[in-house]
């Protein structure tokens, strides 16, 4: 009887995880792609000099990067090992890069406003994210990802975005 109960619990957990995963994340391939892009973006952005020995990637609202987080955590950015953590509303200042999932679209404007001057690279895959104040907004098109860059926001965060990246962006916003 106990064995059965446990088995049932386990199954439920799996189902729920799967549902959770399904509701919260996209497919694994997509997640990894996005994570790769996050990494790549970071390669073309310059943060003001900091003494920290790690690079912190925060995913807003839980494990929103899914399997991509693990991939990121395996790598180093410019010699600094990447730490991926979930970010609550408070304590976002320690992030170098903040990923805001599309589901939190409505919060983008406030979040980014609040984070101004804290040198955070905000990236979101919500449509119109860049217009809403994220530094980089990306979208999946077929097998590729296209993106928009809000240079003004970047400047407010003391971030320098490489011209090479700007060159590739679908659109570049510079309006303050």
């Amino acid at each position, binding site marked *: 009887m106990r064995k059965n109960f446990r088995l049932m619990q386990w199954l439920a957990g799996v189902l729920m995880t799967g549902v959770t995963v399904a509701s919260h994340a996209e497919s694994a391939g997509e997640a990894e792609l996005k994570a790769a892009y996050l990494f*790549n973006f970071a390669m073309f952005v310059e943060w003001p000099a900091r003494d920290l020995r790690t690079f912190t990637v925060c995913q807003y609202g839980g494990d929103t990067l899914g399997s991509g987080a693990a991939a990121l955590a395996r790598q180093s950015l410019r010699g600094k090992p990447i730490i991926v953590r979930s970010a609550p509303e408070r304590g976002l200042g320690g992030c170098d890069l903040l990923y805001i999932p599309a589901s939190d679209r409505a919060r983008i404007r406030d979040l980014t406003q609040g984070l101004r001057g804290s040198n955070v690279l905000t990236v979101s895959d919500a449509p119109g994210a860049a217009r809403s104040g994220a530094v980089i907004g990306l979208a999946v098109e077929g097998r*590729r990802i296209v993106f928009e860059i809000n240079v003004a926001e970047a400047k407010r965060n003391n971030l320098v975005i490489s011209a*090479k*990246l700007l*060159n590739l962006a679908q659109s570049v916003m510079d309006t303050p």
Partner: protein
Amino acid sequence: MSRESQPVSLKIRTTVRPESLSLISVGVALLIAGALLTSFQFYSLRDSLRHDLEVQARMIGDNAQAALTFEDKRTATEILSSLRASDTVSSAVIFDRSGEVFAEFVRGTDEGGATMMLRRGLSIAPEQMLIRQEVKLGGVTVGTVQIAGSLDQTYSRLAVFIGATLITCLLSMLLAKLLISGMHKAVKQAEERLDYLAHFDPVTNLYNRHAFNERLDFAIERARRFGGHVALLLLDLDNFKTVNDTLGHQAGDTLLMNVAQRLLQKLRNSDTICRLGGDEFAVILENLPDTHQAAVLGQGVVEAIAAPFEISGQKTHVTASCGVGIYPEHSETAKDLIRNADTAMYHAKEAGKNIASVFRSEMYEKADRRINIEGVLRVALEQNELELYFQPKVDFLNKRLTGAEALLRWRHPLHGYISPSEFIPVAEDSGLIIPVGAWVLRTACMQAAVWTREGRDPIGISVNISASQLKDPKFVDLVADALAHTGLPPQRLELELTESMLMEDVESNLAVLKRLRSLGVQLSIDDFGTGYSSMSYLKRFPINTLKIDRTFVSDLPGDRENVAITEAIIALARALDLHTVAEGVETVDQAQMLAAAGCDYLQGFLFSPPLPVADFTKWWESGAFDSSALPRTGAGRTRVA
């Protein structure tokens, strides 16, 4: 002559070759240099191209980094297209991380094959160069940039370089040719000059000694083969040194040139005229119709030179002595011919200069002897080969011996009797006359002293004195020494001086004579009547005796003029209170006539020839001139040898 032309053509060949050889060497050197430079340039250009392409690849890679990372092919292609500006890039490809073509660029038309190969990244045509550069992001390779560069430009640049090099080479060759020609011309000129100097005398442009020897050999060889004569004229300018010293060397050279000119004018074209050096010339005569012609030409040459010259406004003249030697008459070889002509020339000088003299074999002996005599004479004095002979002077009327003239004789152990006429001039020329003369004086005085000691009549001794002795400042002391040494009373020594000798330098001679007289020595004038004397000087000279020359005595008493002269001399002597001695008395008639005319003493073969001491003493003792021994006068002439 074919012999002459042969060396010339050989010369031409040898002068062309070194010149073109130099040019070829220059050409080869330039080609090698050009080739090396060209290959260096090629590699340099290629490296340069490679470097440029690598730089471009890196730049492209750098720019395409993001595009590769974000898989933006469009942007990557755009970036590649910027290579259009680089005219050395013919195509370029960006491969993604899996090696697939990400973006590409091809200049001009798409040469399908080329592009295909590009994709595969294979090496292509030799006109193309392939460059690969990896694109990394954060140490990770995100793609590869591959650029194919065209070497066309490199080749065209190289072609230009080669062209420029060739032109430079050609210009250099041209320059080299000019320089080589110039240099060669200079060398040739120097060679010609040396050749000239080797054979010609630069002052007169005549052949020099070297050429002379060659030509004489040729001439004799020709005569040997084809018959005919070769005559050699050797000319020596007689007083050239005087001219050179008084007018300077420049004038001397001009004089030589003028002499050369005269020779050229006087002689024929076939005659070879040479200057042997200094003031010596030589002429080789060939094609002579007969040997006499040589002497004629020689004389002609001498006369031509004797004519006055005008050198820098001044009139000067030189004379020449010419010796003529003839092949094959006088000699068989060139060496002998030269020697004989030289001997003949020497003879010409002896004979008074300004003449041409043809060689005779006797000359050779004489010349030979002459050169010997001086050397031997020195020895003779030491070896006591010299001897004094004595010839008596007699008082005819009183039939007694009054004196003896001492005469020098020389018997050489090998050469035999050498006559005084041969060795006295040699002695005078060489200065040996001084010691010889001193010896004569001492020996004569000694002999006189000996005879006196032997209890004989105290006769006087006379010694002949030469001009050199008179000029010797020590002469008077020598005489005094001889007298002192032998103890002979000075009055018994008589010195005989010739008329012409005294007149040469009257004033200084006068002084010497006075000094001699002050010693007590007697003085007489020998050969009186044959020289140029002035009566006023005669009066001034402190002499004691006049010796009448044998030429006046010889035709007595028949020759009326000689009689008159002799009588005049005797009368003159008397008037001036001088004694007279007649020389060369050979007959009784002469003796009687002279004695009757008042001549004090007689000397000659009638009484005795010059005899060595022993014979003289014997003659003296025999009393051969005792009146009883002589035939009576009027009984005809008698000659006593």
